């Protein structure tokens, strides 16, 4: 029996186990983020915005064993494709190696623009930069885009008096997700609760529990969070469930209006706006998958393209064609375990932007109302 003063009695030991757990939870918040997260976007999204950008300022995230968001979302351990990842965040919290410099272009967009799991020279911004000679500031944000007000504030901070704004828009935004017009004020309030909720210890515990609920030992309740399909060559590929939904006309109309307003505002500041339409992984691979239900996203993108009075580079067709071609050699343009494109996908998109649009655009200086070549072809 434990004596009344023994430290090994329930009333003494058990509350201290709880206390130690709480202390461990607090301490792990100061440990390197890659210890408890599978990639930078996860860390950024759970800890929320810092300063202007999505990441902590002057932050480097390095993870030699990063893997895809869909593998994580569906707790599919077998689906993981481990790869190294490194992201540098600048003094504003955006994914740039340096915060100051002479920029003549800004890339606005979501995680496709950041270049999840891409080396810094293979991201969309770097690829466009290499092909056009522009010096591009990456202002992308995983899961959402910055607001108009934030963009204008960024332009002021960068001291830019003119140039180009590339706005990368994924077709998922034409579905249920609407992130461009979020009011920044409530986001800052949410930041407190987000930081309080973020727990590396919970992440590590989730990984342990996930190993038990792996679909073999015990049922995997997260399995349905990602759609699993088989490509003609037998490869298994995961898709984000939301990408299987149709676009809504309301969202198309919203973005047409949004870009009109944004373009006007940028025009007044001496900027030209170029919209880059990016297809989701399902839009690219659905035509290649037998019995896969199609969506109206490609059509919605074309409709948006027609409604816009600003230059547009729609990368959908180029990516669909390149994906079919690459698959003949067993290669993919998107990570099989992730919603995002890989370096080859970025290269195809950048080439499309360069060849079909920028070449045409560069011949028309100023804020020209030009349609992309692909659209002209349709007409």
């Amino acid at each position, binding site marked *: 029996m*434990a004596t009344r003063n023994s430290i090994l009695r329930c*009333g003494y030991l058990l509350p201290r186990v709880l206390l130690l757990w709480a202390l461990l939870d607090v301490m792990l918040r100061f440990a390197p983020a890659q210890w408890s997260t599978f990639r930078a976007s996860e860390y950024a999204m759970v800890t929320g915005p810092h300063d202007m950008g999505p990441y902590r300022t002057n932050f480097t995230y390095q993870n030699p064993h990063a893997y895809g968001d869909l593998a994580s979302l569906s707790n599919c351990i077998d689906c993981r494709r481990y790869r190294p990842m490194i992201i540098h965040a600048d003094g504003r919290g955006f994914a740039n190696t340096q915060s100051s410099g002479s920029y003549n272009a800004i890339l606005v967009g979501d995680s496709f623009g950041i270049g999840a799991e891409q080396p810094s020279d293979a991201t969309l911004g770097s690829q466009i930069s290499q092909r056009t000679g522009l010096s591009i500031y990456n202002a992308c944000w995983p899961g959402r885009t910055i607001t108009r007000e934030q963009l204008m504030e960024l332009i002021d901070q960068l001291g830019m008096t003119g140039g180009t704004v590339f706005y990368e828009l994924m077709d998922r935004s034409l579905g249920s997700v609407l992130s461009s017009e979020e009011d920044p004020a409530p986001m800052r309030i949410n930041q407190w609760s987000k930081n309080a909720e973020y727990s590396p210890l919970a992440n590590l515990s989730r990984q342990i529990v996930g190993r038990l609920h792996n679909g073999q030992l015990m*049922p995997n309740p997260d399995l349905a969070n990602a759609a699993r399909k088989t490509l003609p060559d037998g490869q298994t590929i995961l898709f984000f469930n939301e990408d299987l939904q149709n676009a809504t006309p309301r969202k198309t109309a919203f973005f047409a209006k949004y870009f009109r307003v944004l373009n006007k505002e940028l025009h007044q500041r001496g900027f030209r706006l170029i919209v880059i339409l990016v297809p989701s992984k399902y839009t690219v691979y659905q035509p290649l998958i037998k019995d896969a239900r199609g969506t109206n996203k490609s059509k919605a993108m074309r409709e948006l393209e027609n409604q816009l009075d600003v230059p547009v580079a729609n990368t959908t067709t180029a990516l669909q064609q390149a994906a079919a071609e690459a698959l003949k050699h067993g290669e993919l343009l998107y990570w099989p375990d992730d919603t995002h494109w890989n370096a080859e996908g970025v290269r195809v998109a950048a080439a499309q932007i360069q060849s079909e649009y920028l070449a045409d655009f560069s011949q028309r200086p100023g804020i020209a109302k030009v349609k992309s070549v692909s659209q002209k072809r349709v007409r």
Partner: protein
Amino acid sequence: MLFNSRVFLFAFLPVAYFVFWKLSSKQLRYMWLTIAGYVFYSFWNYKFCAIMAFSTLVSYTAGIGFLHFQDSLHRKLCLIVPIVVDLSLLSFFKYLGIWNFAFSSGEWLTSLWGMDAASSLLWKFHFHSFLWSRTLLEGALLPVGISFYTFHTISYIVDSYRGTIKPTKNIFEFAGYVALFPQLIAGPIVRFRQVEDDLEHLDTADRRSGLDIGWSYLVIGLIKKVLIADTIAAIINPGLGSFSTLGTAGAWLCALGYTYQIYFDFSGYSDMAVGLAHMFGIRLPQNFNSPYKALIPLIFWRRWHISLSTCLRDYLYIPLGGNRSGVYRNLLITMLLGGLWHGANWTFLVWGGYHGGLLILYKSFHEQWDALPTILRRGAMFLLSIIGWVIFRAESFAMATQWLRKMFYPTSGYMFTGAVVLLACVAVAAAIAHAAPNTFEISHQRSPRAACALAAGLVCCLIMITGGQRSPFLYFQF
């Protein structure tokens, strides 16, 4: 807020505990227990605090009435009015669904009453307007724990009327009793007389003696809930989700799994409640006494959810006539209402009727039953309780009959994922439920080794709590 949540374990409990013991006077402790109870309750829906406060106030006033009035008429009014108010609240929020089901499931009621089409339409219009107003009021949500605190208040009123207890004049003592957070949501249904003494001596309670026992109960309860009941639930729920594909083996595993899940879930909650109350100097009564060791239906109900069974016995069965007259009728009514207490679902009613039938059968054939070997009686009683749980768990009669058919007629089918883990869990659960002493039978002055084992169990629970989906207790819905 669940006991198995981070906010409870790391924020609510430490604050509630340290502030409570910092306060020296009885009155302040009553007030603090009341505040803590309402804060705890408001985590579900703060609007429902008003209903609990109203119910508390009505019952407290009735108690004051009993102290004030000595004549029969006034005392009867003090008995009937608050009970009607409490039961009306309970019916309004909990049992309208069953009538809604009756109406939506056919025209039989209106035809039974011989209504013409116009009257029927008018009646339906009024009824649905009533439902609609309720939906508007609270989004059709059921105030969690309403069955439990309604029973607390009703038992207080009846005991005051009978003179079993002396009603308290201290509103905070009474409010603290009703809103006592360890037992607020899912019991045990504590009667005032059971905690009256501890409440009276709350200012002289010994902090340290309650701590060892309290933590021991709390962690045992957590282990039962998080490691056993939730693991079983994680396997059988998806299995029952694709119920139509199950074969005989799968149906049996699900039935066995649920039999142990509900026991470890609810008895785990009760152990946690007892442990938490101990930490605040209050001793709650035992709610489970190894029910699966019972040899006869009567003993099963003396061991399963004891606080409900005794309430039903004292406030329903005995007033109906008890063993004096119409025993079978009384038993059946009591068990039917006991089933209905669990919620507005016909399967609960049938489950109550089934157990009522078992009790009647035992009363009729107890000599033959008692002559059977012990092991056979124990096995048969356990089998009968499994059948009961199948009815209880099934979402409809069709599912219950199909489930039972699959169990007793060999059917081939699919075996769900996790069957091996489920078998292991069931084996452990069976060993504890059938062979081990229960939490009230063991000593809580633990050896260092046992304390370390509990600490290891607590770490496992914390991993599951922080890393998994939070799982509410099954009895929260009742």
